């Protein structure tokens, strides 16, 4: 399967990319690592007239220590994020999720920003980014703006990035010392999760002081399991204590029904995976 013909431009800077985007507007599609876009183009589910490749913009790659946060360049590959000692130290949940993301070849090509901008509700990075309270930096003709994770994910494959803007960086607040786990339920290897749970906890002795729980594929966007988070605060990290809080994980969610499972099945999965993820994050898994 070959994509429909398109014109191609590979700008050397964000400014050049924005100019190309302004010029071609609706007819253009941005390609980052291309691991989600190329299958779409090959199946001709989309046929843009222009493809704007961000792969030559060096400033969009790399991870920087921003003091209270890590600044992850949008074009940093999953592999590079997953291997980064800073990420492991300050945002362990991201490292954990990436080990479950696709396969080695895709992680070598696919990018952190590209996957998040693609906003597939079954993607593995949305829930961790949301749970960690990340901020998305987008650049447009009028300059840059910062979008909190709560506002970034709008709907299925839809984000707060405007058509004339580009995601340049994701800022992940440091969670030093927090335990983390990503529990992903799949039927076959290297697939999208039917449901996955991203959990990170700060311990105080044997009790959970604070918890953040993000859910993958439990709605049209990644969502926080807020009732569970509230119920975990101050709870002893025991099977019983965590299970009671995890039973609330699907509250307020609107999961899809498909061939992999109906909505009720997903709600059940969310509670089971939340219990496992929180216990593992708390060092009790």
């Amino acid at each position, binding site marked *: *399967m*070959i*994509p*429909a*013909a*398109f*014109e*191609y431009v*590979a700008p050397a800077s964000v400014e050049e990319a924005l100019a190309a985007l302004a010029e071609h507007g609706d007819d253009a599609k941005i*390609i980052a690592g*291309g*691991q989600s876009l*190329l*299958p779409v*183009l*090959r*199946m001709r589910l989309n046929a843009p007239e222009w*493809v704007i*490749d961000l*792969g030559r913009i060096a400033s969009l790659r790399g991870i920087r220590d921003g003091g209270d946060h890590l600044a992850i360049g949008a074009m940093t590959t999953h*592999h590079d994020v*997953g*291997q980064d000692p800073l990420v492991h130290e300050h945002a362990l949940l991201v490292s954990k999720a990436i*080990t*479950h993301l*696709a*396969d*080695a*070849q*895709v*992680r*070598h*090509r696919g990018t952190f920003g590209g996957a998040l901008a693609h906003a597939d509700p079954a993607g593995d990075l949305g829930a961790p980014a949301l749970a960690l309270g990340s901020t998305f930096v987008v650049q447009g003709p009028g300059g840059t703006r910062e979008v909190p994770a709560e506002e970034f994910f709008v709907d299925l494959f839809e984000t707060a990035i405007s058509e004339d803007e580009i995601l340049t960086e994701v800022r992940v607040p440091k969670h030093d010392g927090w335990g983390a786990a990503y529990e992903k339920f799949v039927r076959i*290897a*290297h697939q999208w999760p039917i449901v996955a749970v991203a959990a990170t906890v700060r311990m105080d002795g044997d009790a959970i002081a604070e918890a953040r729980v993000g859910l993958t594929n439990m709605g049209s966007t990644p969502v926080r399991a807020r009732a569970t988070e509230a119920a975990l605060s101050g709870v002893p990290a025991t099977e019983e204590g965590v299970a009671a809080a995890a039973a609330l994980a699907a509250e307020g969610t609107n999961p899809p029904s498909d061939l992999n499972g109906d909505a009720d099945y997903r709600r059940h999965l969310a509670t089971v995976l939340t219990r496992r993820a929180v216990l593992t994050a708390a060092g009790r898994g």
Partner: protein
Amino acid sequence: MTRISLTVDGQQVVDDVEPRMLLVQYLREKLGKTGTVVGCDTSNCGACTVHLDGRSVKSCNVLAVQADGAAVTTIEGLAGDDGTLHPVQEAFRECHGLQCGFCTPGMIMQTVDLLAENPSPSEEAIRLGLEGNLCRCTGYHNIVRAVQHAAGVSAGSTSSAGEGATA
């Protein structure tokens, strides 16, 4: 048409290509390097795996124009100039790590990448490291053995997984 210049299996090549041309198409149709095969055509099976600047990628999921300026290694570039097989190729032959052989180029290219990152992988690390490569004959058992043979680790080894090899 867009002009691209890259190194493939050690040889410099320059070509004008349509932007929509896939890297695997370029390798096979323009350069005649049919050792790299197209399996699923949906970026699932990994049969088309090559190395792009030293890392494994699925060449059906990369545009040729994206490889401009890069160094590509295919299965055809692994053996020595005198025809001496690469140790991983030799191990797949020695352990009969194939049945029909269609997935073999991708399996070998991914194994070379895996062992570069984790020279002594556990069996679990091997299976996870190859999870992006499908064998339609389901001949995984001997493939894992071949990887262990190439790594010089015996079957049943329990050495811990390298970070990058756990998927």
